[in-house]
């Protein structure tokens, strides 16, 4: 169980997050949603102790600061230097760095773990390519393979589906569900909308603080969305309960939740990263 108690984050005198209290259980696929600047990425970084924060974050009742190996982080693609001279294989292998200890190279077991992770994400055949030579979807899968190779209990992903192709998207979604079914804690910071949100067991709507926390149907209400995104957004075609949309089967259009601005205002956009 990952427990956040009164977590606040402040950057240069500006409060990014205020008193966030969450308990995240194993076997949950949790989506963090909210507008730009809401603090979604800040919350993930606060869990990882990458930013100065107040409050406490514990994993199984122990501070996360001494359990870094149990938490895997997939950053936004914009945070990575794609010109760095490293192959996909060695990028994934870095996940085993902390496990190996100082003054030692990577063991055969570590290499086998990295290979298995790459094969699961279907990027093993790309192993010798420099990471900048990969497509956006392939790059994202390499970093997911790195997270998988860490053999963590908690997975924190910052916009893993941003700018990826359909094939990569499908592979990533399947992996997220597998991790959930393997009783991991999976937290995804996402800008998705519509059917894509139906895979989450739980949504946390954030705008500097937690506005709503629960199942997608209880979180994505007009009242909550107005509090997060402001006036000018309204739901179109929202029905309950949402159902998982399987692209191989007939699409269930009644389960879709859409947002559309009033006609006198601009068209809705995917909140930019």
């Amino acid at each position, binding site marked *: 169980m990952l427990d956040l108690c009164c977590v606040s984050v402040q950057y*240069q005198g500006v409060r990014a997050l205020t008193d966030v209290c969450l308990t995240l259980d194993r076997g949950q696929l949790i989506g963090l949603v909210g507008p730009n600047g809401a603090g979604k990425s800040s919350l993930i970084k606060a869990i*990882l102790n*990458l930013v100065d924060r107040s409050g406490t974050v514990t994993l199984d009742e122990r501070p996360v600061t001494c359990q*870094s*190996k149990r*938490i895997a*982080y997939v*950053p936004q693609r914009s*945070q*990575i*230097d794609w010109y*760095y*001279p*490293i*192959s996909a294989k*060695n*990028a994934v292998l*870095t*996940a085993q*760095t*902390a496990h*190996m200890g*100082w*003054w030692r*190279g*990577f063991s055969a077991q570590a290499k086998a773990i990295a290979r298995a992770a790459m094969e699961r994400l279907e990027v093993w055949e790309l192993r*010798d*390519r*420099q990471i900048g*030579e990969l497509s956006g979807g392939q790059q994202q899968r390499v970093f997911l393979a*790195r997270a998988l190779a*860490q053999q963590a209990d908690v997975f924190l992903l910052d916009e893993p589906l941003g700018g990826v192709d359909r094939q990569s998207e499908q592979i990533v979604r399947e992996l997220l569900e597998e991790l959930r079914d393997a009783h991991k804690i999976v937290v995804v910071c996402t800008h998705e909308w519509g059917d894509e949100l139906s895979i989450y067991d739980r949504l946390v709507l954030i705008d500097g603080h937690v506005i709503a926390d629960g199942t997608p149907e209880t979180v994505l209400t007009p009242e909550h969305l107005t509090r997060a995104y402001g006036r000018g957004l309204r739901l179109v075609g929202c029905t309950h309960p949402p159902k998982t949309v399987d692209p191989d089967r007939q699409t269930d259009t009644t389960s879709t939740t859409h947002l559309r601005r009033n006609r006198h205002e601009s068209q809705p956009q995917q909140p930019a990263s």
Partner: protein
Amino acid sequence: MLNFVLDPLHYDFFRNAAIVGVTIGILCPIVGSYLVVQRMTLLGNVISHAVLPGLVLANFFGLDLLLGAFLAGSLSTGLVSWIQTQPRIRPDAAMALTLSTFFALGVALSSLLDSRLDLEALLFGDLLGVTTRDTIETGVITAIVILAIVLHYKELLFYTFDPIGAQAAGLPTRRIHLGLVVIVTLTIVASMKTVGVLLVVSMLVGPAVTAYLLVKELHQMMALGVLLGVLSNLVGLLLSYHLDLPSGAAIAILTFALFVIAFLWTHWRDRFHVSP
């Protein structure tokens, strides 16, 4: 052609210079690779200029020049980090301010203390004036630095590739950063007598960035950088001997020439060759 290479080898000073040149040609590209991939090459410039007050003070107090240079170089990087705690000030401004201030301080101290240091040799290098002691000191520093890099290669790779990911994974990133700064400072201190503080950056950056254009992995970048570094040092020394050029300048120009060749090759390759 053979006489061009063999004639200078009859002289002790040239043999010492060649040994030191090879040593620096190995050390600088390896360390410089980390500066290049982190986009921190200016830091090398800061340290190389900042050592000057340390050299002057060490000479005044009768201390080892390398110690004075190391302390001044380390202090300058600490100052840059401190200035950057003010988020409005970008790294390049912090570095430019520190570099110029320390260098000016060195010049002022040299005048005030009536220093007997050969400033020209320190600034521009005097590879052909290298002594046996210099050779040994350079060799020892090179061995220490390379051993440290080999032992911590995977941690340095992770940190320089993805510092946030490395921190998230629990690596002691502040210590790793400090270690890198120490390595860079030691490298500059070891190299400054030969190519001079003004041109040591060309040895740090030139071969590494040339290799960066041509390879896909960090260890390949280091290996090719070493080849290029040794080549430019040895050929630069020969040109310096035969054409009576300052050795540091000859090496720096040759380093850039190799970069231009690699750049043009890369440009041609990217334009006319499509990867499978």
